[in-house]
Every structure is written in C-alpha cells, then in structure tokens.
C-alpha cells in the first residue's frame, strides 16, 4: 500500500487532520453558539463536512446530528460532498447581472462541461454561484479560490481556467 492510501481513513480525512478537528473542538469547548464557527473551521480543514465529521462534532459538542444537519444544510457555505481542488465562485449579483454575468456563467459551464453547483469528474474544479462578493466596481466578476478576476468577458474564461488546470 502506498503512503497516500494508508493515510486515508474512511471519512476522507487523514489522521493528522482528525487531530486538527479535535483541536478546533477543544478551542470552542464551553463557548456559546459555537456550532457554526466549528463547522466553518472543520470545513476549512477537510474541504467538506463528511458524515463522520458531523458525528464527531455532535458527540463532542453534545448536539444531535440531526440538528447539525439542519444547520449545515441551511447555510449555502457548508458542503456535505467532496469538492474540487479549485473552487470557482461566479457572481450573479445585481451589479454583475446587468453587466452580463449570465454569459460568464454560460461560458464557464460550456468550458468545464458541468452545470453550476457541481464538480468536474476529475475533481479539478467546482463551479458555484454567489450573490455579490463586494467587488461590484469590477463587474462582472468571479473568484477562483482566493483570487478575484474582474471586468470579465466570455472570451477571457478559457485563459483564466488554464492558469488553474
């Protein structure tokens, strides 16, 4: 077995990362209203919230898993399925809408051959929509991971994607 494989446990995270989850849980011990920040930090570590992670958080915080699912599914920020290595968030807010955001989304869907809300089969890209990232002055805009790209045209999309491929 290769090293990579031994490190993978059934929850999709490796042991070292599981330790990180416990660190997060210790940090929030006894803090009021901790569930959302814990989920946010857990997702930062694991990329998404697997069943095992949610169960462990429930045990440690003493919250029913059904309640955690209720919260995790309510907020668009949380993901229950694995996601791509690069997260594309294309703005569909008002300022971007009036400056052609629909065509940008179309170009992304055509180029990646997936629809918004899904991940490419090779797990390279996840395509999501977002309502305003506050860079409206550069509309239409998109974010890939932490980089913001503005003043977009559909023609510019393949070039931008190539930088992350």
């Amino acid at each position: 077995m290769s090293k990579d494989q031994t490190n993978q446990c059934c929850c999709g995270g490796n042991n070292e990362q599981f330790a990180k989850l416990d660190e997060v849980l210790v940090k929030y011990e006894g803090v009021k209203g901790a569930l959302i920040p814990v989920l946010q930090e857990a997702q930062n570590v694991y990329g998404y919230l697997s069943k095992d992670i949610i169960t462990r958080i429930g045990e440690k915080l003493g919250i029913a898993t059904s309640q955690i699912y209720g919260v995790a599914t309510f907020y668009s920020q949380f993901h229950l399925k694995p996601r791509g290595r690069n997260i594309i968030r294309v703005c569909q807010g008002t300022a971007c809408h009036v400056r052609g955001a629909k065509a940008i989304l179309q170009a992304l869907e055509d180029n990646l051959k997936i629809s918004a809300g899904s991940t490419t089969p090779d797990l390279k890209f996840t395509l999501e929509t977002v309502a305003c990232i506050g860079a409206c002055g550069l509309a239409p805009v998109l974010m890939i991971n932490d980089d913001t790209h503005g003043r977009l045209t559909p023609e510019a999309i393949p070039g931008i994607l190539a930088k992350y491929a």
Partner: protein
Amino acid sequence: MQHIRAHVLICAGTGCTASGAKRVEAALQEELAKKGLDKEIKIVETGCHGFCEAGPLVIVYPEGTFYVRVQEEDVPELVESHLYKGRIVERLLYKEPVTHESVPNYNDLSFYKKQQRMVLANCGHINPEVIGDYIASGGYEALAKALTGMSPTEVVAEVKKSGLRGRGGGGFPTGMKWGFTQNAVGDKKYVVCNADEGDPGAFMDRSVLEGDPHRVIEGMAICGYAIGADEGYLYVRAEYPLAIKRLRIAIDQAEEMGLLGENIFGSGFNFRLKIKEGAGAFVCGEETALLASIEGKRGMPRPRPPFPAISGLWGKPTNINNVETFANIPQIINKGSAWYASIGTEKSKGTKVFALTGRINHTGLAEVPMGISMREIIFDIGGGIIGGKKFKAVQIGGPSGGCLPEQLLDLPVDYDSLIQVGAMMGSGGLVVMDETTCMVDLAKFFLAFTQAESCGKCTPCREGTKRMLEILNRITEGNGKEGDIELLEEMSRNIKNTALCGLGQTAPNPVLSTLRYFRNEYEAHITEKRCPAGACSALTGYSITELCKGCGLCKKSCPVEAISGEIKGRHNINSEACIKCGACIAKCPFKAIIKG
C-alpha cells in the same frame, strides 16, 4: 530622522487588489529602493476609495495626484517621472467620460466633487491597519468625550436629537432604538453590528469596514456605554474576508491601547467585541434571523414583538444597528447633534452612502447629503450612462426596493419621498439601467433571488414567490397569458400582507414598481410577444434596416434559409422561419441587421 517628502498611497481594498494593487506595490517598493528614494518616500496602503472601477488607484501626496489603472509596468515611469523629476505622468490620469479631459487632482474629479464624504472621510486616506492613523485623524475622541463627560442618557439624547435614522434599510430612528434598549431591564445587554450586507450589488459596508474599521468599533463602544452593554458582536458576511481580517487587527490594536477591554479611559466602563462570520444566507441580514445565527442555529426569522431591544441575543436586551449607522456616531458626539441635524432634509438627516452600479460610467461609492436629487447622483457624480445610451430607470433598495423612471429623476432622495413613489432607501444600492435592460427581466432577476433565499418558514413567501416567478418566466419566454398581470398584482398583495418577515413582505416590490412605471413592457411581452428592450432572447426578433446594401452575406450565413433578397436589393428576414441564432448580425458588414 529622515524627512519624508512624499507619500504614495496605494489602494489595498478588495477591488484594487483584484486589479493587481499588490503587484504594483511590490514593484514600487523595489523601484524606490533601486533609485535610493525609499527613505524619503513612504508607501501607504489604504482602504477603498469607492472608485474601484478605475483601480488599482495610486495617489501621490503632497500634490494629491490621482493615478488610475496603474499596472506593474507603469511603475518605473511613475517613479522616474513623477517622484524623481516631479513631472506628472499624463497617460495614467483619469479622463472624464464626457469631456475626455484628464484630471490630475483628486478633488477635481467630477466623481468626488459633489460628494460630501463624512462617513467615508478616512477611507482611502489612512492605513486601516494602523490605529495611530485613525487616532491622528481625531479617532476615539468621541468615545473619550462620551465616557468622561456625558451620562449614558445624555448620549442617547444626543443621538435622538441628531435625527440619525438606521442605514440598514428600515430607517428607524437610531436614538429611539437606543433608548428602548437602555430602558430595558436586564443583567446583561448586547450591542450587535449588522455587517451582513446582503443586497447583491451594494458594497458600502464592506468599504467602511475595510477602509476605516475603527470608526465602526468606536460607534459600537459608544452605543455599549449608552445602553449599558459590555459585550458586542460584529456579524460579517463570509464573502468579505478582507473586512474580517482588518476588523480582527483593529480590535486587537484597540484592546492593546485600552480602548476596548476593562475600565476604558478610567471610566469603569468595560467593553469587548467579537466577530461572527456569516455563512451565506441573505435572510440572516434580518435582525432576528441574524441573532439566531449568532446563537449557532438555523438563521430563521421569528415574529416580533418581542423586539431585540427587549429580548434579543440569548434572550437579553440587544441593540442592533447597521455598519453605516454606527459609523455615523463618532462625528455626532464630536461635533454635536445640531451640526449633524443641519445636514440633509427635515426628516432625513446627515449623509447616505450609495453604491452606484449598472450601466453607468462611474461605478463606485458616493456619499451625498440626504435630499440631493437622483439626477445629480447619476449624471453629475456617476458620469451618466455608458456609451451615451439613454437612461431608463434606476433600481434603489435592492431586492426589497423599487425602480424610479426618468420622470422621477428630480425627486429628492430621502427615506419618505422614496416610499411615496413605491421604492425605498434600503441599504443604498443603486442599479442604473439603460434602454437595453428589460424591466420584466429585472423584476424576474430580483424575484429569483428572493425566492432562492426564502428560508421556507412561512407559506406565502415560500410558495407565493415560487408561483410569481413561474408567471414571470412564462412572460419572458413568450407564453404570457391574458390576466397574468392582474394575477401578479393579487399575489403581490397577498404575500406583502401575510409573510412573516421583511424578506417576504418586500419580495414583491420590484414586480409592483416595474408594473407601476413600465406596465406597457409587460403588456408588450404578453400580447405582442415582443421584448421592447430586445433583452429576452426568446422574444427577440431580427430585422434588416434600410442600411442594407444587398451584399448577400447574411443570406449565406443563415442556417435555416430565413433570409431572402436579391444581390444589391434590400434583404428581408422571415420571422417565422428565423431561429434567432444571431449568425447574420455578426456577418453584416454594414450593421444593417438589428435585434428587437
């Protein structure tokens, strides 16, 4: 100590960073060091100037020369010419859209001239990560004044007299709200700042938090003193990582200097602040949903009363205000309520920051006195419509607001006049539309947004908006029926009257207001199956105008042989056969083919 002879301000806000400001800064540092100028010229990172469209922005002081769209490659010339030889780099100056004149000085830009920047006074001018910059500009003086020279009741009275109204949408008198929380009985009280900024297309709160975070912190601390709270929360949307980072730094620095924490200014007043990151739900901007979210629950609104002032966070009396509301507080305490109340109109005092976006030349943030006309905002400050097109309408107040047509452009912008014409101030998002925007499509856009964001707790909002959206979809796809307009109106009334929270109660507004001023566009879609703006692709027909020279290129490009005509004669499109692929438009060398 070496004498600093020039300051180079680089905007490090979200917009300019996206346009490459960090690379410009690195290049500048390197170039200054290379030329040995790094001791006498200081680089300062600032927050957003509200003119992100022209970014990355670089301003050179003492002259105040305003450079736009500066890229790495421009840096050597900028240093050599301006900083070394004192010669302005003409080609990097801003050019006015109408006159094409280039403007060297910050204050002469038409975008800034008519603005009255009070809340935004520091944004773009100080380093938001250095508390000393804020203090040097008079920061925390108001907190000192309140804590050492005023009683909590005096502070509340002062805010009441200023006439300040909430900037988060509703326009509720801030002093009165503080009074309620002050009078509420409780062993523990909270101050909460609503920085969820949900209106998609509004970014004034982001700008204030990134560019001048201490102003908001100071406003919250003054509020804490006034109402008797020792703890506060800032609820910031997760889409604003830079604002969150700057707030963290600001809170740490304020604690270090004893401006937050125990016994502030030796007054015995304690105040601590925490940040809560939102998790991407528009409804969490609604105050009761926001409080539920801070408590770690699903962010669903609950009926009021009880209002948060009586029973808020964890059941304790809680005062919740918007970012811009808090940012107004320090100057009211410093300069007095009478001074503040002298700005604006009878019932709307002070200034308001608007986010100008859409089909307008100057996208950006404009802070203006209440009561200014929409025409001045759009044409004088905003520089008019892109490409000289015709103004059609402006949407104010985002998904809860309404639109104003051409004939209302001279209306004074204040809370009450806007309500009268079926719009609302909202957070201050202004989306400008020109003749190419379809108003039915716009209404559909907003309704699709609120529909997707409905939390699902009550039926009128959850099901009603879905049904309305179906009707609007049908209309824009050319399947509208007689009676659809009346149905939309009836459903709008029902939802407004029965929805539980502001999201549902205001969701039909964009539909009602576009119906009020652009009913004929709805009718054209339904009865003539035509989109007058040429925006709804299912309804746009193609036709050939008299510009046609009869070259025949279009005929060859049409995949379905919908074009007829003889060489040198005017060609024609058979609208029955045309599949609206658009191939012919692209081919015509004489621009004779039009949509719509």
